[in-house]
C-alpha cells in the first residue's frame, strides 16, 4: 500500500505510529480472546458428542419399545391413550455470557412433579409395553434438553470464533504490515529530504564563499 497517497510528514508519521500501537494491542487482545474461545469450544464439543450419542441411543431404544407397544395394542387404542397429555412442560430460558457470546440456558418445569403423570391413560386398557416406552422417553428427554443447550452453545461459539479468527488474521496479515510499510516509507522520505537539504546548504555555502573570495 506504499503506493497510495500518504503525505510524508512528521505529523502523519506520528499518527501512523499511534495506529500501529493500537493495532498491535488489538491484535494481542483478539488473539487471547480467540484462544480462550477455542478452549471453551473444545469442552462444549466434547460434551456435545457424548450427549448426542446418548440421546440417539436412548431415542432409538424408546422408539423400539414404542414400536413393540403399538404392535400389541390397536392403533386406535394407542392414539386414544396418548391423545390428551396430563403432563405439561414449561421451558424457561436464560442467557449466559461466555466471552461476550450470549448462550442460552434452559431449565424446564413440569406442571406436576409426580413422575407417574407422564402416563395419561388408565392402566386397564393399555399394555405394559407402552409404560416402558414412555418411561424411556421421559428419561431421554432430560438428555435431549441438555443436548439442545450444548448444541446451540456450540453453534454460537463457532460463529464467534470464526469472526474473531478473521479479525485476528486481518490485523496480522493486512493492517499491521501495511502500517509498518507506510511508516518505513515516510521515514525514508524524511531522511531523503533531510539529506537533500544538507547537500543544498553545502552547495550554497560553497557558492557564497567563492563569491566572497572573487570579490576580494
Amino acid at each position: 500500500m506504499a503506493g497510495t497517497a500518504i503525505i510524508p510528514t512528521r505529523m502523519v508519521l506520528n499518527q501512523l505510529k499511534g495506529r500501529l500501537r493500537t493495532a498491535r494491542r488489538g491484535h494481542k487482545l483478539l488473539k487471547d480472546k480467540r484462544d480462550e474461545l477455542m478452549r471453551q469450544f473444545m469442552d462444549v464439543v466434547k460434551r456435545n458428542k457424548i450427549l448426542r450419542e446418548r440421546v440417539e441411543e436412548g431415542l432409538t431404544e424408546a422408539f423400539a419399545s414404542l414400536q413393540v407397544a403399538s404392535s400389541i395394542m390397536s392403533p386406535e387404542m394407542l392414539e386414544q391413550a396418548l391423545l390428551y397429555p396430563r403432563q405439561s412442560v414449561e421451558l424457561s430460558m436464560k442467557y449466559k455470557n461466555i466471552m461476550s457470546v450470549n448462550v442460552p440456558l434452559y431449565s424446564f418445569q413440569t406442571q406436576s412433579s409426580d413422575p407417574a403423570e407422564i402416563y395419561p391413560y388408565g392402566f386397564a386398557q393399555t399394555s405394559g409395553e407402552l409404560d416402558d416406552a414412555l418411561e424411556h422417553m421421559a428419561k431421554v428427554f432430560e438428555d435431549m434438553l441438555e443436548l439442545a443447550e450444548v448444541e446451540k452453545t456450540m453453534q454460537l461459539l463457532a460463529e464467534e470464533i470464526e469472526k474473531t479468527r478473521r479479525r485476528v488474521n486481518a490485523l496480522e496479515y493486512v493492517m499491521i504490515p501495511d502500517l509498518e510499510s507506510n511508516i518505513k516509507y515516510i521515514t525514508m522520505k524524511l531522511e531523503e529530504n533531510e539529506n537533500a537539504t544538507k547537500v543544498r546548504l553545502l552547495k550554497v555555502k560553497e557558492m557564497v564563499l567563492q563569491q566572497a573570495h572573487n570579490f576580494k
Partner: protein
Amino acid sequence: MGFKALGLDTFPAETPGEAGKLLRQLTRESEAEYAIIYIEENFAAQIQNEIDRFKDSPSPAIILIPGREGSIGLGLQALHDAVERAVGTNILGD
C-alpha cells in the same frame, strides 16, 4: 409420537415440504414461545437451508433427533460442521 405424553407440543408432518412449512410457521409465530424445536433427521436433510437460518441466532435452537428408522448421522454431521467452521479444519479425526 410419545413425546406428547411428556407434555411437549407435537406437530406431525408427512412430507419434508410440510415440515418446512411448519417450521417457518412455528418460528414466525413464536417470538418467544418455542425455544427448542426438535426435528427428525430424515426431514431435516431436505430443509437444511431453513434450519441453517437459525444457526446464528440465540433462539430458537433447532435440534435434530433420529427418526424411527434410527440415526443417519446428520446430528453428528452438524457437530463436525461447527468444528470445521471454528477451527478451519476437521480436528476430530473421523
